[in-house]
């Protein structure tokens, strides 16, 4: 009797950790989606297919890490989708198929990314414009500027060298090919985790949790947030390199990515408004979003209902994760 009780309690603790509030939900959901895919199509788990999935998911993971950094300090970055699009279009126009221009253009893109992040950050922190508005403005500015510059549709072409990272990989047995995008994403996630353990990361979370308290404690809030915006833009640039490499230039590249990235982060249990959540959970959120796309595809779900189902799942998951936070005032009954 007591043994059974202990065992149930133990099971509950495990289940609680697995299905409990906060970030754990996303890992449970990710596992669930993968299991569903496994039932529908076991061949998805053959190494080459998994590598294809990794290649496709890597840009979103990178974007999610960038978005996480901004969200956790209490802001939002809506400009990343437009920035990805702008960077790919800039790259295509400047490279114009010339292999030798690849590296200089990458540097130009990096500089442009830093500039966009800096403007975002300073507008939010110095001019005190709410980040929703500031980055929405930046999103429109970039979208319009690129259309103005290119006359509506992108021109030029990316070089093979530029496309290497997003499209190719290291040929090897079993996996067939290890896509470059995978190590890139892993490095970004590891760097993100490391950053959050450093004092800067702690400061970032503190700022998001309570801006005033952080300021009283000596944090230069404007600087911390500006750095977060710059990092987000730089990561969006990196994602742009991967996405451009993956599929080349089309007029629609990057469209809607900001919301996919925010969805991924929120799905990871990172709280809008800041102060809570981890890089790993944001990454898991990104993987879950991509896995959901795959699952929908495997189910041959009509394309028209996919956004609806996706919306329902996201709301359900976030509501589920939030219920822990809804009732901390309930006294534990024993």
């Amino acid at each position, binding site marked *: 009797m007591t043994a059974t009780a202990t065992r149930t309690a133990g099971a509950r603790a495990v289940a609680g950790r697995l*299905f409990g509030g906060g970030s754990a939900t996303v890992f449970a959901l990710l596992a669930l989606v993968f299991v569903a895919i496994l039932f529908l*199509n076991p*061949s*998805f788990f053959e190494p080459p*297919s998994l590598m*294809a999935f990794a290649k*496709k998911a890597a*840009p979103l993971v990178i974007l999610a890490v960038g978005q996480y950094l901004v969200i956790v300090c209490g802001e939002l970055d809506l400009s990343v989708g437009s920035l990805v699009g702008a960077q790919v279009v800039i790259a295509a126009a400047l490279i114009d198929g010339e292999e030798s221009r690849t590296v200089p253009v990458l540097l130009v893109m990096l500089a442009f990314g830093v500039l966009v992040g800096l403007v975002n950050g300073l507008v939010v922190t110095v001019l005190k414009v709410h980040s929703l508005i500031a980055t929405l403005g930046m999103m429109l500015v970039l979208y319009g500027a690129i259309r103005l510059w*290119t*006359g*509506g*549709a*992108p*021109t*030029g*072409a990316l070089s093979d060298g530029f496309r290497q990272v997003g*499209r190719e990989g290291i040929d090897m047995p079993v996996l*067939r090919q290890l896509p470059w995008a995978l190590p890139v994403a892993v490095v970004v996630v590891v760097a993100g985790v490391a950053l959050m353990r450093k004092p800067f990361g702690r400061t970032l979370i503190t700022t998001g949790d309570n801006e005033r308290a952080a300021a009283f404690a000596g944090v230069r809030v404007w600087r911390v947030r500006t750095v977060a915006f710059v990092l987000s833009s730089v990561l969006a640039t990196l994602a742009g390199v991967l*996405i451009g490499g*993956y*599929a*080349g*230039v*089309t*007029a*629609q*590249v990057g*469209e809607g990515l900001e919301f996919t990235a925010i969805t991924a982060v929120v799905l990871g249990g990172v709280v809008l408004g800041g102060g809570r959540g981890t890089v790993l959970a944001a990454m898991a959120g990104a993987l879950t979003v991509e896995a959901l*796309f*795959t699952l929908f*595809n*495997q*189910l*041959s*779900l*009509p*394309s*028209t*209902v996919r956004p*609806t*189902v996706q919306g*329902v*799942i996201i709301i*359900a998951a976030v*509501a*589920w994760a939030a*219920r822990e936070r809804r009732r901390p005032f309930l006294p534990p009954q024993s």
Partner: protein
Amino acid sequence: MRRTLVAGLAVAALALTACTTDTPSEQAPGGDGAEQEQTADGEWFVRANYEHQLAQRDMKPEGPADQPWLQAIEPKMADTTQFKQDGKTLCFSNASVSNPWRVTGWITMQQQVNVLKQSGDIGEFRVSDAADDDNQQISDIQAFVDAGDCNAIIISPSTTATLTPAVEAACASGVPVIVFDRGVNTDCMATFIHPIGGYAYGADAAEFLVDKLEPGSKVLALRILPGVDVLEHRWAAAQEIFGASDLELLGDEFTGGDGAQIKDIVTQYLQRGDVDGIWMDAGDGAVAAVEAFEDAGKDYPVMAGEDELSFMRKWKDTGMTAIAPVYSNFQWRTPILAAVQIWKGEQVPEEWVLPQSPITDKDRDDYLERNADMPSLHYAKFGGEDLPGFPEAWKDR
């Protein structure tokens, strides 16, 4: 807590089952032997129009052979003497320049205007761009009407039903109205200019796949978005033809024309099995679909893309079996020329149906050579080679 869990699961389960049960009904025929609706999307399929368009493909258009933008199929000439005038202000309400096809056409149109400005046929060319917003376009058209000094109004409507009253209002103001590309539900305009149409486009692509693939081969359909008549007609025609063939349709997917999504979707289909043919309702991102086969190490599919150069160049480089259906981009020249004809009191076709024929492997290299300097998101049948701005205007866009 348990209740929340159950509720959450129930919602998810509901959503999932609701959707899985949707699939078979989607693929089942719409009605038993109903003549009008043999495809699933019967809403978009009108058999008479479909058959008419298919027949128009084989008709010989009237007009100069080297100027397809002035040719017309089965023209019923309309008298325009009532519009004869000396005014030279031409107004154009554009739906948008939001895709490469429209950008290419828009450049061609401007170049045509320049020629006629120099010859003195056109004085002022006023343009408003509605950026794909119906409300914006309605007020754009109204602004032209209110200004009262447009001698003709050209309209490229963003959607059919919503823009109809605005076009009617423009007609009522007494100036000649010229509509091109997408249509409206009225015949008040002086002329309606368009290529043969969506059914013909979709049929060109689908017939090619049926012709080149063995019976039992698997075809994947990639579509941009639902609900746009010209695109829905392409798909309805393809469903009609695939339905009567021995090809297996693996699925139809909406891609938004985004290369990354196209590549991802095709890659996933390839993980589950072979894909022998690709049908697309527009060629945006066709190269990404081809690359998915390359990256997966599979043989090239038989493919229907579009006359966008990126696809045509890939087609030549790979030597794959393909066709480039064409939605004649040169139609952007015609409204300008029509306006000048109307001002002179010359007759124009009531419905000006421009020729529309696909590019095949026979004339592919010819078109590639003619467009050798053009950027990859340019359309081969843009029909502006004889304009003085060629090639710089299209090259440096």
